């Protein structure tokens, strides 16, 4: 049964993916448009301007379809959108293209396997997929466990602060963060990018940039002082 699905969906996806490498977004848009006319409005802006809120909802919806219906068409769209970005994200100086491909593949398999854990009230699809890809990279390249808290069991919260489940309700938080990120001084944003793209600890970043540890720490703290305001936290 799954082999049938693979054969029937296999060739259009290959066409679409080959086209991504050649022409990027345009081809993907036209593929979407041939599918269902009522969703064109939601899909077109997704590929023109990055991340209007309709785009977030659309990607969240795809992930829900994968979780609830094991919908392989929705999964293919997620793959088409995210696989090239995950590879671009992690293809830092350190990792070869082969290694990056391995991480992308493992990450997308885990997106399918763990889709039931995705909760759109807590995170955007891209946030959740970032965490899945990050963990796939730790697992594959460092062969280490990644200890993680279990937010479904809040019995241990000993402080009176709101619990994370209650926090993520403002859909515009990401928009505001995006604006602040773009406004950060170059030296601060460079440190954040090295951290996320190359999975470098702040001590390694200091070494790579030839800076004293204290300088890197203070850049991180200054960046998060600004970003925290958008997270609704007190600095």
């Amino acid at each position, binding site marked *: 049964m799954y082999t049938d699905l693979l054969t029937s969906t296999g060739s259009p996806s290959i066409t679409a*993916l080959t086209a991504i490498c050649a022409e990027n977004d345009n081809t993907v848009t036209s593929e979407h448009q041939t599918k269902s006319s009522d969703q064109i409005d939601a899909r077109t802006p997704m590929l023109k301007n990055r991340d209007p809120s309709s785009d977030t909802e659309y990607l969240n919806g795809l992930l829900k379809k994968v979780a609830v219906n094991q919908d392989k068409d929705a999964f293919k769209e997620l793959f088409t959108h995210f696989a090239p970005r995950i590879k671009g994200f992690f293809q830092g100086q350190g990792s070869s293209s082969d290694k990056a491909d391995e991480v992308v593949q493992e990450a997308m398999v885990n997106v399918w396997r763990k889709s039931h854990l995705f909760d759109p009230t807590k995170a955007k699809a891209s946030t959740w997929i970032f965490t899945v890809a990050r963990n796939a990279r730790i697992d594959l390249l460092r062969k280490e466990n990644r200890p993680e808290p279990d937010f479904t069991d809040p019995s241990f919260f000993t402080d009176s602060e709101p619990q994370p489940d209650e926090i993520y309700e403002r859909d515009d938080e990401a928009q505001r963060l995006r604006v602040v990120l773009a406004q950060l001084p170059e030296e601060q944003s460079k440190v954040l990018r090295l951290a996320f793209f190359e999975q470098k600890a702040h001590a390694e970043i200091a070494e790579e940039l030839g800076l004293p540890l204290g300088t890197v720490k203070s850049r991180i703290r200054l960046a998060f002082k600004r970003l925290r305001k958008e997270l609704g936290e007190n600095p």
Partner: protein
Amino acid sequence: MNITHRPSDELMLDYASGALSEGWALAVATHLSMCGSSSSFLRGMETIGGILLDEADEACISDKMFGSVLDKIDSDMISSVGQKKPVDVRTFGSVVPKPLATYVGNDLEALAWKNLGLGVRHLPIGLSDKTSSARLISIPAGKPVPEHSHSGRELTVVLSGGFHDVTGEYGPGDVQEAYGDLEHQPHARDSEDCIALAITDAPLRFSGIAARLVQPFFKI
């Protein structure tokens, strides 16, 4: 209860990006299990990761990859018949948050604690990454750990009870980040034993001769 000592921004960033190795990540995850405020901060950092992923350059993906991903998924579905349920780590009324419970279980009193003398006990925790060491430490109420300094970094997360030293007062969920320059002698609170998770990347340096003599035997 009130958490006042949270991990530094740079430590949280290292955890959010995935750069932090296992031992330190275990300490941060244990703290996160007890601290709603740090947890929502982590979510914010992960949102930033998601934004950077959204904005990442699109790299070329080979034609074959989607097919291989589907193959893997399909073989999952076949092998998932009769698969074991994931281990249900129950925590009852214990003081062990889940990330730690997966390493040591839930019942602290059932652990094979080793005596370090003067009522201080410890339990080494096995990590797959060997660049740091993890252990639980139990200090009797009102008692000190021998005075020591660090040649590297030490992260301590209080699980129950509490301690104080020259840097302040630490209770359940609080994190202490100590570096090579700190020489301290933590004292457990008078009211109850202090149980804490401690991660180090280099042996501690004890100031007293007695502690130095036993140190090699306990590999602390």
